[in-house]
């Protein structure tokens, strides 16, 4: 394995330790925010991330955290290791990027993961993360952060949160009025 490839692998591992400050139990990799790690040249790593929601105030913190953790852990590589963290919005982040481990961690922390498939305009069926009942009510589509909604479980009487489903709505949609 070449030196650069090894470095890339190590960066990937470090990113497993970077969490969303508003959900400190899930890593940015599990959330599906990592798009690419590129070696621009020797000693220069570029990490490309996809923001979950475009106005997310945690982005600056995540960016700083990635830089700090990579530099801290990979000191032996090169004292002059250069790390660049960029956000891009293409492809757009969608909830189906969240890994299975990520979904499990969300559940364990009282946040229901988004439904596996979601069609615009159709109601979502969200099970309670505590008792798994489907007898739940949507209290507010908008929750404490841009990516979460607030729900209530009528079975175990617990309020809980769910990740708002985000799917690519333009796929296959034809807008006849444009012609």
């Amino acid at each position, binding site marked *: 394995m070449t030196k650069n490839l090894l470095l890339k692998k190590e960066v990937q591992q470090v990113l497993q330790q970077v969490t969303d400050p508003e959900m400190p139990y899930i890593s940015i990799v599990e959330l599906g925010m990592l798009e690419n790690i590129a070696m621009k040249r020797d000693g220069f790593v570029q990490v490309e991330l996809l*923001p979950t*929601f*475009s*106005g*997310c*105030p945690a982005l*600056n913190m995540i960016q700083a955290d990635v830089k700090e953790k990579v530099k801290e852990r990979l000191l032996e590589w090169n004292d002059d290791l250069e790390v660049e963290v960029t956000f891009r*919005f*293409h492809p*757009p982040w*969608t909830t189906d990027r969240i890994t299975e481990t990520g979904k499990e961690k969300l559940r364990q922390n009282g946040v229901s993961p988004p439904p596996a498939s979601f069609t*615009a305009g159709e109601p979502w069926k969200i099970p309670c993360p505590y008792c798994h009942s489907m007898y739940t009510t949507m*209290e*507010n*589509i*908008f*929750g*404490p*952060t*841009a990516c979460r909604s*607030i729900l209530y479980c009528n079975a175990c009487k617990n309020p809980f949160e769910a990740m*708002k489903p*985000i*799917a*690519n*709505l*333009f796929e296959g949609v034809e*807008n006849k*009025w*444009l012609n």
Partner: protein
Amino acid sequence: MQREDMVLCELLYQLADDNFILAYRGSEWLGLAPHIEEDVAFSSINQDMMGHAVMYYQLLEELGAGDVDALSHCREPESFRNAILLERKNGLGHYLENPNYDWAYTVVRHYLFSVLKQIRLESLYHSSYEPLKQAAEKISLEHYYHSMHWETWFTQLMSSTKEARHRMENAINYCWQEFDGVISLGRYGKEICDHQLIVEEEKLRNEWLKRVCTTFGEMQFSPKTSPGMESGNGRNGEHTEDLTEALEVLSEVYGGDKQAVSW
């Protein structure tokens, strides 16, 4: 800057400034919305919309128009390209003192804007400028929830009490007099369309009217006139004192300490 880039920038300023100033007006409702759930929802929407403005400002930065923070905080009111309707105050008073704001007006303005924003995004998705197309794709995923939110408020208040209906109709009539200013693409409109950045004003207007009037019809309401542009065209840099005041408040911290923008 080449003519083609200049025309592209004009459109980007319109898109950025619309979202920027309306997100600001929305944020003035923080703590004042009709109930706690709305306070949570509205702040989330404002945060998203500010994010959309940032995305458009970033595209401007990439084209060499200046740095994102400077574009949002250091421009003079006359270089803003937002529609006048979107810069108007939320009602009487000030958010710090006697905020006698009008919720019906806010619901109507946001609902009418969200329909046009959806139409613009659908068109931008076919834009000849690839980065704009990509931005539209990302924004539409979030806007989906905003549209749903404002349509719910709009139809519920329209079919609520007599007083609610009366306030809503007043708000519609007021917004109607100005809404053509939101649809307008400004003095470079023709060139913007020639470059296939977005479809013609006429198509945007027809589609917007079609969608809005469908909802109006379900609510037994029909506007008597075509949408107007009574206070002037913000796309050409015409604005009111409301914008000047808003920008002063918005840039107070940035103007006082340039390091304070990042936390």
